[in-house]
């Protein structure tokens, strides 16, 4: 080598003449060939060493990487727990749903593929255009929903063509379903895809990103999210680099979420919501013995099914623009001057303060209080407590409230639940206001004046209450116990301490309230058309604006009086109590017929339904039908055609509709039993029928391709398990 180098670096000029000849060139060749060979050998050793390093030292690392390439873990979203009514029928359930997603990154030919899907699924041209825009904007591995709620034929047609459709992913899943739709919307809420905030809140839970996965967005769906959610399953599949699934490796089933059982009576809720009809208002019905909320209807409302499917901007605009605020739960968040409905409670305050029921005042179309004359709606003459309640004489209350002082009245009101919140699983309930001197000073810095007492004594002025509070008031007054409303049927026997009212006093007030309906009262048309069951109640008319603006009965809707009615039945032994509040109904006449029909339905479903049917014929269909028609008209006005999701075909879901009660009653009749409607209705504290819960989750199997019908316990099972 040394020789070679020196020769190389030697003097070329000299070499040309002397040194270079055939044999030196041959030598050069040999030496350099050896070096070249050595170099090649060196590279061979380097390569072998490198390979050994990769294959031995780093084997584990690369083996893992190869596995993570090969195996793809997909989450199987858990089936959401059902929300059941007190009889174990679903108010919110899941139904099998076929959907199609696309993954932009994996589309070979986005335009062509989307056109093809659009043709197969008969998507509207605007939807196809939307999809194309979304795909071009969004490219990535995040799936985009093309369509959901497909029927099986469409799904199958798409699945067959999958090999030609790279990046298109048909999926079987479950979508939330609310059988009675708008009747339960405010109470149950709805579900929807998680937003960025929720995703961050939950530590970037990948489940929330799963296409089609929805979480509770409002109402009970949101509050009981944790219980309802369940645990996701997992599917390990072998995938190619382009994401095509080669085969399943392992599947772990999801754990469905727990059901939540409410005290709500599904058919009653549906009946009440529909009975509100064209009005805007709410109905609360409670079980006096337990405080179970049997019904919390608030109308008008929205369709939680379309909210859960992803509500369109037009439908949302329609709801938002509506002056009847269909997005607000009026049972909890509607505040109204209670008007005369609080008069029986004020009488209880008078009795406690020593006023005798027989004490009278003279009503001459009003009464002089201090130096001012306050009008009554009529001239009642000599008025005792019974007449004051039955005919709602204002003068009586002006006088005795003034006599005992309003602090005592306000204390009683608070004791009876006015201005209070209750321990309920709801997102928000409004307190309302029970005005008293301290409150007024705190609020306005002004002293309490006689006319404040006058106004407050008849439930006007600063007085504000929610329909729920009025329902609770009715129940407490009817029973003389601290009835607390409850919404969850969780088996705990509620405690109900007594107010220790004098039995005679209570009997007197109950009788007076019965006289409102059954005597010479203000709501004689509210009598139940049922032999032997008497409804007791109190009407109320809440003025919204001063008489100078409107007479409260006609003119613009928003200036009309609110119509209120609190009630309980049967009057001798109160079982159910409640309140009906109709916004701007023009007076209590808009409220008590609803209470009457709801209680009729309670005791005699057939007669109740008959009444509803004839009314709905006049109104043009059920609340849901009217809502859908209104939306279609609203959308047509804006040049959009509306296709409603296909109507359901699973009859099983009809069990919470008002008509279901009738069917159940008929089948009992056939069975030869005497009709004892709703005898054990109030048997609260009993766990929901086991069959209804175990059967509540739709069975699935990984390879079944046929649509699954969610399996619920048939109605008879639920009925039987209730009548031991």
């Amino acid at each position, binding site marked *: 080598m040394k020789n070679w*180098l020196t020769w*190389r*670096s030697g003097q*070329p000029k000299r*070499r*040309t*003449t002397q040194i*270079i*000849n*055939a044999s*030196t*060139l*041959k030598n*050069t*060749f*040999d030496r*350099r*060939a050896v070096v*070249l*060979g050595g170099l*090649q*050998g060196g*590279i*061979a050793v*380097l*390569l*072998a060493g*490198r*390979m*050994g390093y*990769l*294959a*031995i030292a*780093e*084997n584990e*690392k*690369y*083996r893992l*990487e*190869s596995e993570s*390439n*090969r195996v793809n873990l997909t989450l199987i979203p858990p089936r959401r727990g059902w929300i059941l009514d007190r009889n174990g029928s679903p108010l919110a359930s899941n139904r099998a749903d076929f959907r199609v997603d696309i993954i932009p990154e994996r589309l070979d030919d986005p335009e062509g593929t989307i056109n093809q899907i659009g043709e197969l699924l008969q998507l509207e041209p605007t939807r196809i255009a939307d999809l194309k825009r979304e795909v071009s904007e969004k490219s990535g591995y995040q799936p985009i929903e093309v369509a959901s709620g497909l029927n099986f034929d469409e799904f199958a047609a798409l699945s067959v063509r999958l090999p030609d459709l790279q990046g298109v992913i048909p999926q079987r899943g479950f979508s939330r379903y609310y059988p009675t739709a708008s009747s339960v919307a405010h109470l149950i809420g709805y579900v929807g895809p998680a937003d960025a905030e929720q995703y961050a809140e939950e530590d970037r839970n990948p489940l929330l990103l799963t296409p089609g996965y929805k979480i509770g967005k409002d109402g009970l769906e949101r509050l009981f999210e944790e219980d309802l959610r369940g645990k996701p399953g997992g599917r390990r599949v*072998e*995938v*190619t*680099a*382009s994401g095509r699934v*080669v085969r399943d490796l392992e599947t772990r089933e999801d754990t469905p979420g727990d059901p939540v059982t409410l005290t709500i009576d599904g058919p009653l809720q549906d009946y009440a919501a529909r009975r509100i009809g064209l009005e805007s208002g709410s109905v609360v019905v409670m079980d006096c013995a337990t405080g179970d909320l049997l019904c919390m209807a608030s109308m008008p409302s929205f369709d939680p099914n379309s909210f859960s499917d992803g509500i369109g901007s037009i439908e949302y605009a329609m709801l938002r623009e509506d002056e009847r605020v269909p997005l607000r739960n009026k049972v909890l968040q509607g505040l109204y001057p209670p008007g005369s409905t609080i008069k029986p409670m004020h009488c209880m305050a008078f009795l406690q303060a020593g006023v005798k029921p027989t004490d009278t005042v003279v009503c001459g179309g009003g009464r002089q209080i201090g130096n001012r004359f306050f009008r009554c709606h009529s001239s009642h003459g000599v008025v005792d407590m019974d007449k004051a309640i039955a005919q709602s004489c204002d003068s009586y209350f002006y006088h005795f409230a003034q006599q005992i002082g309003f602090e005592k009245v306000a204390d009683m009101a608070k004791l009876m639940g006015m201005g209070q919140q209750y321990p309920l699983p709801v997102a928000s309930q409004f307190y309302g206001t029970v005005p008293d001197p301290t409150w007024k000073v705190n609020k306005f810095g002004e002293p309490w004046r006689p006319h404040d007492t006058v106004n407050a004594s008849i439930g006007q002025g600063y007085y504000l209450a929610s329909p729920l509070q009025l329902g609770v008031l009715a129940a407490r007054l009817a029973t003389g116990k601290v009835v607390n409303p409850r919404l969850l049927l969780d088996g705990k026997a509620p405690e109900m301490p007594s107010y220790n009212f004098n039995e005679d006093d209570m009997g007197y007030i109950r009788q007076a309230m019965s006289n409102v309906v059954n005597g010479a009262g203000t709501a004689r048309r509210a009598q139940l058309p049922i032999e032997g069951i008497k409804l007791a109640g109190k009407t109320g008319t809440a003025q919204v604006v001063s008489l100078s603006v409107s007479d409260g009965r006609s003119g613009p809707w928003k200036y009309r009086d609110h119509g209120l009615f609190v009630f309980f039945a049967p009057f001798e032994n109160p079982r159910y109590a409640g309140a009906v509040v109709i916004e701007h109904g023009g007076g209590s006449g808009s409220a008590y017929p609803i209470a009457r029909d709801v209680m009729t339905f309670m005791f005699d479903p057939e007669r109740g339904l008959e009444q509803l049917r004839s009314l709905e014929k006049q109104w043009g269909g059920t609340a849901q039908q009217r809502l859908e028609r209104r939306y279609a008209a609203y959308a047509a006005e804006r040049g959009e055609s509306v296709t409603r999701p296909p109507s359901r075909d699973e009859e099983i879901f009809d069990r919470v509709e008002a008509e279901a009660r009738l069917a159940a009653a008929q089948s009992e009749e056939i069975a030869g039993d005497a009709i004892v409607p709703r005898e054990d209705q109030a048997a609260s504290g009993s766990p929901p029928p086991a069959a209804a819960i175990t059967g509540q989750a739709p069975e699935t199997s990984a390879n079944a391709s046929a649509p699954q019908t969610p399996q619920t316990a048939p109605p008879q099972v639920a009925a039987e398990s209730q009548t031991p």
Partner: protein
Amino acid sequence: MNSVIPYPIARQPWGMLIPLFALVGFGALVLYSAAGGSMQPFAASHLTRFSVFLFLAGFISIFPRALVRFLTYPAYVFVFILLVAVEIIGQVGGGSQRWLDLGFMVLQPSELMKPVIVVTLAHFYSSLPVGMITSWRALLIPGVLIALPVLFVLLQPDLGTSLAIVFGGAVVMLLAGLPLKWFIGAGLGGAALAPLIFYFGLQEYQQRRVLTMFDPEADPLGAGYHITQSKIAIGSGGIFGKGFNEGSQSHLQYLPEPHTDFVFATMAEEWGLIGGIFVIGVFTIILRWGLKVARESQDRFGSLLAAGMSATIFFYIAINLLMVMGFAPVVGIPLPFMSHGGSSMLTNMICIGALMMVNRWNQDAPRGGISSMS
């Protein structure tokens, strides 16, 4: 040589040919697996082409020296014209076309240029008067001979083949005895120019390939994808591999080009380090034999020819294996005798044929003999 085996068969270099057959057979197995467990479309045509080109090699091996020397320059001119023709057709066709479709295979003239440049330079240096080896003419004319085709190949653009041609030519020049300082100078000059070439000469995608070689994980889904997946395939194979037809990287299409450029990774995944050692071993045997043929040749033309041919094969092997193992940028050079592809098989079998030819010359005139140095 009076055995039962006839002389024409017995005289063949079986020490090289048997490992070569084994390697091609092994290559067919790997291609069988790369096709998802099927002879079609890779393995069958791989074996067919090898058989055809083996006959070609055998045919080349019986060429007499004089004929080869006579045909050398016409062959160079012919291939060069083909190269220009392809470029022109490509320009007219409005895209970069590198091949001519011959029906049974597509031919890349640039591939043919690799052995042709070797034989051309071998002829040139063997005809060059001994004394002139250090003169400027010894550098200039071969330089032009190399530069012309390289220019057209670069225009295609095909960096890998350009480098292969330069490498083959340079090895012949080195072995021909050109002053070493020229090479050292060229090496230093190249090192100095490299950054300039990198920043101004290379296309952006080529720059990225070079950069990712140093840090493939920086962009595992982009430019580094090939190298990353190749290393995963080799590394996950371990010592004994995942088993025949069990390679997930190749079968699930994570490995790019599992049948051509990355065939070694496909093999390594299923056969492990053992398979890798076998392949490297066979290549070592073939290249050692090639150099042995070169050194045994008493004839300057034969020596340079044989050495140049084995250098050409070596270049393929080295760059491909360095690439799949993450030591060289992705340049698109297939692995001889294993990768599926007609042109590279043709080139390599021409090289083998030429080596067998020189080997036959050596056998016919083992010592000293009639070698002409003029």
